[in-house]
């Protein structure tokens, strides 16, 4: 009798990385492999509800040096859905407060024989630094404003799932582009999959330099809105800003919040994404966030599938994962 596990074992093994540090360095084929794998996991686990124990005996350590609710929960659940174990670490209760460096902290966690660490840190580059200092796999769960690869991938999965393709779509990233790791991961990934990307926000948060990455720069949401197939509404990252980049939240909302009135001028099938946590009334009004165009909760579910895929690919390429190619 065919089982879900057997079905899953047909995924081609073209993944050759030990870590997932960013989307920038991924090829389009690697991105598609992750998305395909995530879709299969989603199917095989009935929408991520059930277990598919392909990583039994493997351990994920969540090293969160910065606060997180959804990403950490998502990674933990993803590992458990794959039959693996998880161990959680939080900076506030760790030896970091005793003066230990984060590399030493990570090395000590690794010495407990974990197979993969998932790191969230406020400083760009810390996952890379860990990947150079640890033997186990490292997954970037967000490093400051640099990248948040699984968030970018789950956004792509959600768009692809809804539209069937990404190539040819116009996707606008709206908001605090300067401080957004999600924006960077989206830009790299969406462009590799053939989308036209617009970054939109106040000039203090969206400099003309972004054009050098191949994206269109706009400061006027109303002007670009009719052309957009997808709006990804990014949170204003007050905590990362050293100076206030706009006069008031009210003014920001006036210029950039996606609301019912703007929706009437958008494409009829426009997709609304938001990586969360969303600030209702700032980036998006409640009626739009909870409306029919919103895929915000689909993103959360897909996040679980993407993280299962990434964990399986990283652990599978790093060790003798019994399920690869049906072994």
């Amino acid at each position, binding site marked *: 009798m065919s089982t879900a596990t057997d079905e899953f074992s047909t995924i081609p093994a073209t993944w050759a990385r030990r870590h997932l540090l960013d989307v*920038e360095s991924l090829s389009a084929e690697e991105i598609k492999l992750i998305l395909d794998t995530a879709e299969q996991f989603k199917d095989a686990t009935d929408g991520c509800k059930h277990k598919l124990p392909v990583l039994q005996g493997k351990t994920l350590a969540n090293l969160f040096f910065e606060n997180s609710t959804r990403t950490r929960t998502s990674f933990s659940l993803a590992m458990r859905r794959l039959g693996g174990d998880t161990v959680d670490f939080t900076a506030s209760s760790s030896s970091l407060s005793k003066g230990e*460096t*984060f*590399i030493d902290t990570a090395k000590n966690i690794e010495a407990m024989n974990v197979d993969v660490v998932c790191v969230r*840190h*406020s*400083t*760009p*580059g*810390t996952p*890379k*630094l860990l990947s150079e200092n640890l033997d186990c796999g490292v997954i970037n769960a967000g*490093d*400051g*404003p*640099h*990248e948040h690869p699984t968030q970018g991938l789950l956004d792509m999965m959600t768009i692809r799932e809804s539209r069937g393709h990404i190539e040819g779509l116009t996707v606008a990233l709206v908001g605090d582009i*300067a*401080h957004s*790791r999600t924006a*960077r991961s989206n830009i790299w990934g969406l462009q590799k999959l053939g989308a036209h990307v617009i970054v939109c926000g106040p000039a203090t948060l969206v*400099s003309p*330099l*972004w054009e*050098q*990455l191949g994206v269109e720069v706009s400061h006027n949401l109303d002007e670009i809105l009719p052309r957009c197939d997808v709006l990804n509404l990014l949170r204003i990252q007050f905590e990362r800003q*050293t*100076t206030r980049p706009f006069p008031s939240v009210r003014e920001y909302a006036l210029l950039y919040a996606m609301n019912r009135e703007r929706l009437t001028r958008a494409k009829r099938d426009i997709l609304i994404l938001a990586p969360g946590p969303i600030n209702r009334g700032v980036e998006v009004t409640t009626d739009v966030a909870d409306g029919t165009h919103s895929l915000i909760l689909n993103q959360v579910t897909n996040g679980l599938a993407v993280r299962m895929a990434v964990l399986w690919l990283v652990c599978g390429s790093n060790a003798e994962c019994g399920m690869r190619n049906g072994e």
Partner: protein
Amino acid sequence: MPTLLIQNGRVIDPSQGIDRVSNLLIRDGKIAGYDASPNGQDRIIDAAGKIVSPGLIDMHVHLREPGREEDETIATGAAAALAGGFTSIACMPNTDPPIDSQASVEFIQHQAARADQCNVYVIACVSKNREGKELAELGQLVQAGAVGFSDDGAPVYDPELMRRAFEYAQMFDKPILNHEEVRELTRGGVMHEGLTSLILGLAGMPSAAEDVMVARDLSLSMTTGGRIHVMHISSGGSVELVRRAKARGIRVTTEICPHHFTLTDECLRSFDSNFKMSPPLRSRRDVETCIAGLVDGTIDAICTDHAPHAAEKKMRELDQAPFGIVGLETCLGLVVTKLIEPGILDWPAAIAKMTINPARILGIPKGTLALGADADVTIIDPEVRYVVDSSKFRSKSVNTPFAGWHLRGRAETVIVGGRVKYEVNEKR
């Protein structure tokens, strides 16, 4: 004191316009003659194929003592200087406590004498406790031996204080050396602001932060007649400003570090804290403008901004790691490899920027092989090629981005006051 004869070397002394093969005689710690014959000297050094230069001078070094001896001490820093070919260094006052009193200047001198390596000159604070509020006792500091004033590590921020410093320091004909940075523009910054910082999500430090303060200081220098020395210049805009100011007769000099004409902000792609410095590594265009400034004389001196930090400090996350790298033991090789070998500077021009020019800026009687001058001499092997091995550094810290680099040219023998203080093949 033994007599020394350095024979058959290519003697390059920009202070006298000398560039010729000659025998250099050293007697009683002084330069005693050219074209001398071997005649009973205590020691003869064969310098055939080598360059005989006035002892190199690094006018911008951090020795960390007192207060941060885990990073460097005066003894280890001075030893590193010798290994890099420097016979004289000037140390910055951002120690703990800062060098803002006669006693603290004398402490440095005492430790330097005890170390008995190279000459150590003291740059003292502009302001009391380096707080940028009140002028330090500049007159007493000069009496103690300070050769210039700086609050390096931080800019002299208050323009009124800077104006007074320019006015007051003129009484002693001492320069004010300023770290040019408007800190409101660099708050939280880790690297140069540009495309690379945008991609990496690292907080940027725009070139304008340097340019704006350079413009301020040039204006104050012009108003007061004071001498401004722009420290570790890095932005193309600043180079342009200094070039124009010199043309207008403003009393300005400037210096550049090897990393600022060698590396760009793209190095931060590695997220390696050994590429984190202040001012930051700039864009390719900035680097090219700086190199043009070296060629046309806008940039007077090459210094290292030797900034040792113990390994555990540099191992931290990029935004928590301190700024700066060690430079004493890689400077000469980088100058030879990146400026002389490609034909950007010739040997006399490069040596001038590492000898007589810094000596003149600081007003110290060094950087020359004139008869009767102190016999500080660096013998350079211009052809030797080697790989930078930071584990062999004499500096207490090894925070360098140049480890593993293939360089050409290094100091082979270093003579201070007529004594051989360093030889490359000596046992370390």
